[in-house]
């Protein structure tokens, strides 16, 4: 039943992704390409971090390698090599696989925090070395190429790139999902849960981890390749810690324990960046805030929360929960608006424009405009608004929290639910 429902849901999503984009504007088409790439990147990353419990802080290395390998192949195609353009991501896959095998061989010699540090070191090594390698990585400016036409398709428009990306991402997701169904996919989970036992059963845990690492790097390479095809350029910044950080954020906000969790994270963060970065310069601050809040209150991520509710869909007392949930949402809204209000106020009051106004006003504190209203920094109302919002919201949240917990407690826990964090047991910080 459940799998049937999932299948229908996925078919619907795929249909929307196939049919809708031609009717969208250029900006949205571009955003969709980025969302698809981020989703694949996060899924590939999660194969290692969520499923195998090996937290990598340097996945930018394989993303960048995939991008550069693809660009080199594109340059060769420009020079007359008869390689079909739609198959370009194969170069990224190969580069990711090869670099992933080497890096994976060494990284998986360590576990826990030490593993994370080795991956970090690899990425930083590439990031600091590549600007100096003119031939391979084009120095600081990087390398650029052009998408060449193939069989009448010219790959000139964003839409063509979108469909190419969609095809590759869907294929990769299918393979990654099928992977979890194979015996090796089960072994991956076993390594996360109890590596010692896996070894005791006669498996070579190091080889297995190395292969998992390489597969993860390979799909990361495909994501990098798609990025290179879309942007037609790449430079050493692709190896930067920002890229590695972003994928960690997306995956864990989405939920590392659930297969589609990283996709949820990637979609929401990319959309968030696309929509909010135009509105405010503090969007990175909000992004960090969301991440920390999820880590604190929903350690299994958004996907984990959704899954928890889906599993109890039939047996939960929804009518009883509706009211406390609505109150909680209201409370969160109030606190959220207080935070946004304060952040934007600070951004204005400490901004350059205001400091110029302040100097011109000679001693007085001039008013400012925010959210379509004008405010004065010395008026008590300005500071009362967030105080009241936050106060009321906090009281609401605090009161309703107990009610919700009690209601869930009364319903009992679903049998199949695993509350285990993905790599809680693994990262005990041993150099074994």
């Amino acid at each position, binding site marked *: 039943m459940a799998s049937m429902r999932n299948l229908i849901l996925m078919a619907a999503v795929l249909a929307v992704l196939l049919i809708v984009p031609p009717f969208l504007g250029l900006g949205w088409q571009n955003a969709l390409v980025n969302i698809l790439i981020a989703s694949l990147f996060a899924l590939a990353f999660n194969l290692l971090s969520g499923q195998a419990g090996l937290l990598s802080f340097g996945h930018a290395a394989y993303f960048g390698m995939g991008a550069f390998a693809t660009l080199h192949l594109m340059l060769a195609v420009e020079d007359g090599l008869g390689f079909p353009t739609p198959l370009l991501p194969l170069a990224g896959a190969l580069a990711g696989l090869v670099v992933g095998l080497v890096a994976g061989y060494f990284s998986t010699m*360590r576990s826990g*925090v030490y593993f994370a*540090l080795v991956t970090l*070191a690899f990425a930083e090594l590439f990031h600091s*070395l590549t600007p100096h390698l003119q031939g391979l990585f084009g120095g600081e400016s990087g390398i650029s190429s052009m998408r060449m036409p193939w069989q009448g398709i010219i790959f000139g428009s964003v839409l063509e790139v979108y469909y190419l990306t969609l095809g590759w991402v869907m294929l990769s997701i299918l393979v990654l999902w099928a992977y979890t169904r194979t015996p090796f996919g089960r072994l991956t989970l076993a390594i996360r849960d109890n590596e010692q036992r896996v070894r005791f059963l006669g498996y070579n845990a190091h080889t297995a981890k190395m292969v998992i690492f390489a597969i993860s790097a390979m799909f990361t390479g495909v994501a990098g390749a798609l990025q290179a095809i879309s942007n037609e350029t790449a430079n050493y910044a692709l190896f930067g*810690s920002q890229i590695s950080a972003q994928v960690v954020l997306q995956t864990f906000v989405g939920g590392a324990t659930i297969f589609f969790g990283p996709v949820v994270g990637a979609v929401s963060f990319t959309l968030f960046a696309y929509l909010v970065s135009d509105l405010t310069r*503090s969007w990175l601050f909000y992004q*960090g805030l969301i991440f920390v809040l999820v880590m604190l209150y929903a*350690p299994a991520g958004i996907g984990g929360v959704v899954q928890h509710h889906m599993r109890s869909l039939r047996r939960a007392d929804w009518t009883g929960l509706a009211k406390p949930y609505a109150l909680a949402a209201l409370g969160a809204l109030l606190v959220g608006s207080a935070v946004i209000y304060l952040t934007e106020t600070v951004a204005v009051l400490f901004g350059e424009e205001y400091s110029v106004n302040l100097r011109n006003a000679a001693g007085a504190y001039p008013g400012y405009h925010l959210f379509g209203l004008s405010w004065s920094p010395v008026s008590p109302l300005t500071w009362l608004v967030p105080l009241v919002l936050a106060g009321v919201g906090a009281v609401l949240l605090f009161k309703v929290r107990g009610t919700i917990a009690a209601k869930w407690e009364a319903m009992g826990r679903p049998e199949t639910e695993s509350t285990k964090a993905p790599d809680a047991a693994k990262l005990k910080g*041993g150099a074994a």
Partner: protein
Amino acid sequence: MEFAIISTLNGVTYGLLLFMVSAGLTLIFGMMGVLNFAHASFYMLGAYVAYAVSSIFGFWAGLIVAPIVVGLTGMVVERYLLRRVHAHGHAHELLLTFGLAMIIEEMIKLFFGDFPVNYQMPDYLRFSAFSVYGTDYPFFRLFIGATAVVMFALLWGLLTRTRTGIVVRAAERLPSMAEALGHNIPIVFMCVFGAGAALAGLAGAVAGAFYPTNPNMGLELGVIVFVVVVVGGLGSLKGSLLASLIIGLFSSFAVGLDWSVASILDLVGLGGWAHSIGGLLTLELSSVSATIPFALMLIVLLVRPAGLMGERN
């Protein structure tokens, strides 16, 4: 000779600065097993707090207030944030500090703007201590170094010579046993975290007055501090000092040297071949000076993960 002396002096002071930041990080890791990604942000926070305070109350007030504010921030982080996710395992603690690093950086940008601020040492500290080969050597570099040395001596004395130090070391080694003996381990953890953060804050306050103070300073130093802590041995204070000095000296020497693999091969007559290959072989030491620390970190992690001075586990 001139190059050697100047580089040694600069390297030692830079190394001591690295040590100030990494001391807290290594203490925290040794005790709680938490790899604190926000540690370099504490360093940056220290510089900015000192800047804000010193612009009103003067340089020395900033120097005193910054470590206190940052230390208190650290204690709040440990008490109300880290302890909450502790049950979910080390990965979540690590991810939390990672998110905190982002928040601190963005908050700094919110208040002070995404550009360097004009945080300067007072004019009466702006003199040359001595001159070597005609070059004046700034006193403030020595001041940075001296602060670190005093700090190391105090920390070392505190940890090895006092009762508090014994409790802290016991809490590090066997927390549950120390707790069974009646010591309040959660408080010890909170204080160690706060102290570590305060040290980073002090380093920021001192170094920010000499080096540029900008929202990227945490990120720039952050990774290199990880290198120091790993190479020295996670949890080892002496190891951190040694590794800081090695990395400091190395980076100050490397920027002035144009050695490459090809120039070494020249000595055995293979230089021409190496130059024809190019790529990695002709890279000069000065241009890979940022790379070598990571290579060193990688080698240490793979060959001897306990680091130079750490204990094997």
